[in-house]
């Protein structure tokens, strides 16, 4: 029986690590050996990983244990509103922290090699640890406010890490973009949280209390709350319309993209929806809206990814696309399916990013897939692991992605919303197509290529993750294939149970496999021998190449107008109106002083006149004429 204080430690240790690294970096900067920084950085996350596994095992072994909570101290106490710094773990959180910490450790190890000899090495690990701490706080918080603190924390670290190479202002702008769009989402989230508090927080504001009291909230308000909370997820998890920061965020170092923008931060939105399942189950309309947003984001991103040339941007759009799948599942009530896809996606997406990082370093920091072109024999480990990951993401059995995507699409079909099912199916085809376009372009080129040496610390995590990508699918074998849905059952989220006949499931699954095969075939046909980048020949190509001009549209509608408004304020209102007011009032006082000064003209008779005037006034008053 382990102490629930471990929950607090899991969150605290990365924060402590960040603090220590940051402290030393502030004073010694690059004079300390890099190994010291990475030791503390990896060590703290590894400790959290070990503790998370321990907690998970505790949940495994003890079947009656459904949740564990630990309250560190009381934070806010305003009459009846009490917020504790408390941690809460049930099966859902335990799954999240397990893979977040394990994958996080692997990526930390990878980053130690990748960021070798980079300026500000210590700063990187400090931010990285800070991120891990915030993510764990987000997952383990026992009330929405703790979740929000973690939410903001990961947004902050995302900004800090994207702008890591801050000497180039483009990177800083990308970081700003990420933070600002996150903020817009957070605004919606905050309003939703406030409404939830006002209408449903009478009995306490922890997740457990809210779950029991959620029926007291009027349904119109509940719809609003659900919608607003999802606005936050739109920003954090890069769905339409707040997704535009994700491709730009690839300006950060590759480990950052791997950890934050593939495996963890972007999935915080999905986790949040699953955590608030008690709200979303009562508002199926909002759920449908979420599913449609997810579907459209998935398709949209897949279309754009088919024409991108930058390897990291392709992977970024693919993340957005897969997140769309997760939201389809969450929106239609299959929370466990969403989390399962989060779980498998973390493995293969992190793997893909790390592999991409290896490739980028190998060709001396070029990121265009048509420049990276090499032969698979030059980097065998990377080749095999990325092959496994690409097969997984394309939904090829028996790799993990197949099972998770298939579960989602079957649920979509069973829910009766065939439009969503159709979109997800088309997207699956496109996914296979563009992922293998990437794969074939990169690995089927010329044999003779001069490569940079790759650190072994960068290759080992690839192998571990590949094993995960390959095997984790088996955790959730659906019934019709002979499994028992162990993952979904264990995670015990309040899913909407839908049933399909076994024959229907077989048909759908076969259809998915065929479509993946078609996608791979087309990719091979166009890019196997002589890959060419897309050019702007037809207008459709142009549209897709320019990412549907969304950034430009946002710029014209929002950015330019806000700039104009602030220019107006700063030059006209501030200078001409406000400064003038202040100047006039201060000079007005001065002028008043000059005028009253004229009363002192030294003429004694003048003073006598004043006195007499005063006397007359007083006597008039005393005579009661006034």
């Amino acid at each position: 029986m382990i102490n629930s204080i471990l929950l607090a430690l899991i969150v605290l240790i990365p924060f402590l690590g960040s603090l220590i690294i940051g402290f030393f970096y502030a004073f010694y900067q690059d004079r300390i050996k890099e190994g010291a920084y990475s030791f503390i950085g990896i060590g703290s996350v590894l400790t959290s990983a070990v503790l998370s596994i321990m907690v998970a095992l505790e949940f495994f072994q003890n079947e009656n244990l459904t949740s564990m909570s630990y309250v560190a101290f009381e934070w806010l106490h305003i009459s009846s509103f009490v917020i504790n710094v408390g941690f809460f773990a049930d099966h859902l959180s335990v799954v999240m922290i397990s893979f977040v910490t394990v994958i996080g450790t692997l990526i930390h190890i990878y980053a130690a090699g990748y960021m070798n000899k980079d300026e500000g090495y210590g700063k990187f690990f400090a931010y990285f640890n800070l991120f891990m701490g915030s993510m764990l706080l987000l997952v383990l918080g026992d009330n929405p406010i703790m979740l929000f603190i973690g939410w903001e924390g990961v947004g902050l670290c995302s900004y800090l890490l994207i702008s890591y190479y801050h000497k180039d202002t483009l990177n800083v702008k990308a970081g700003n973009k990420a933070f600002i769009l996150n903020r817009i989402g957070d605004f919606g989230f905050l309003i939703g949280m406030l409404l939830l508090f006002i209408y449903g927080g009478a009995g306490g504001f922890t997740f457990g209390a809210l779950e029991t009291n959620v029926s007291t909230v009027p349904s119109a308000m509940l719809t609003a709350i659900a919608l607003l909370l999802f606005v936050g997820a739109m920003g954090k998890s890069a769905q339409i319309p707040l997704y535009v920061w994700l491709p730009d965020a690839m300006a950060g170092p590759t480990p950052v993209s791997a950890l934050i923008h593939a495996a963890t931060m972007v999935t915080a939105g999905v986790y949040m929806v699953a955590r608030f399942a008690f709200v979303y189950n009562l508002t199926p309309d909002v759920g449908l809206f979420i599913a449609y947003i997810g579907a459209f984001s998935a398709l949209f991103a897949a279309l754009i990814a088919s024409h991108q040339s930058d390897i990291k941007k392709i992977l970024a759009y693919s993340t957005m696309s897969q997140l769309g799948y997760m939201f389809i599942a969450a929106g239609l009530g299959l929370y466990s399916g969403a989390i399962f896809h989060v779980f498998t996606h973390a493995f293969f997406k992190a793997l893909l990013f790390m592999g991409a990082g290896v490739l980028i370093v190998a060709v001396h920091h070029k990121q265009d897939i048509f420049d990276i072109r090499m032969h698979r024999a030059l980097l065998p480990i990377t080749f095999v692991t990325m092959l496994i990951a690409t097969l997984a993401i394309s939904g090829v059995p028996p790799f993990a992605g197949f099972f998770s995507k298939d579960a989602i699409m079957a649920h979509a079909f069973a829910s009766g919303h065939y439009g969503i099912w159709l979109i997800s199916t088309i997207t699956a085809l496109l996914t296979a197509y563009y992922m293998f376009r990437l794969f074939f372009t990169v690995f089927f080129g010329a044999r003779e290529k001069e490569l940079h040496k790759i650190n072994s610390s960068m290759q080992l995590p690839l192998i571990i993750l590949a094993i995960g990508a390959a095997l984790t699918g088996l955790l959730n074998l659906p019934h019709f294939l002979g499994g028992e849905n162990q993952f979904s059952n264990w995670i015990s989220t309040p899913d909407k149970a839908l049933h399909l006949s076994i024959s229907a499931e077989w048909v759908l699954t076969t259809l998915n496999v065929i479509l993946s095969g078609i996608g791979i075939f087309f990719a091979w046909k166009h890019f196997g021998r002589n890959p060419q980048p897309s050019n702007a020949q037809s207008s459709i190509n142009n549209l897709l190449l320019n990412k549907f001009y969304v950034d430009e549209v946002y710029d014209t509608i929002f950015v330019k107008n806000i700039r104009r408004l602030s220019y107006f304020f700063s030059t006209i209102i501030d200078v001409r109106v406000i400064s003038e007011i202040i100047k006039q009032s201060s000079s007005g006082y001065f002028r008043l002083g000059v005028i009253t000064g004229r009363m002192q003209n030294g003429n004694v008779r003048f003073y006598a006149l004043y006195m007499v005037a005063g006397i007359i006034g007083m006597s008039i008053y005393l005579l009661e004429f006034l």
Partner: protein
Amino acid sequence: MLIEFIFIALSLITLISALGMISFHQPINSVLSFIVTLLSIAGLFALLSSSFIFIVQVIIYAGAIMSLILFVIMFLNIKEKNIPNEPKKALWISGSLIAISPFTLLLVNALKTLPQKEATIINGFGSIEAIGRELFSKWVLPFEMISILLLIALLGAIVLAKKEQNR
């Protein structure tokens, strides 16, 4: 009957000469008019049975102080250009007279609250003997201080009016 007649005459003289004092352009005329005012006020003192004050007013005020002023005026050798010309004098005086009327009215109202008493002549009320008794018993200290004050004023006047010593 006689007393009322004298009172009315004296008060008219006082008022007219006071008005004249403030109206004349030449300072000599103002001074002479003022002397008339002082003398009629002395007469009023006498009507109030204060014989000593009457004598003091005539001798000291109308006599010594006014002589001093006349002396200084003649000593200064005032030419026409030294006297300020006041273009709107009549306007100012009449306007101020009207403006000061509330104040006057206020004081008159305050005075009306005193008990009405007939102003008959009392023998021996303000005589030298009575005043002397009061002055040297109850008011001896202020009396002595006044003499010191006069000494100081004398010295001050001398110091002020001395011609500048040429170095």
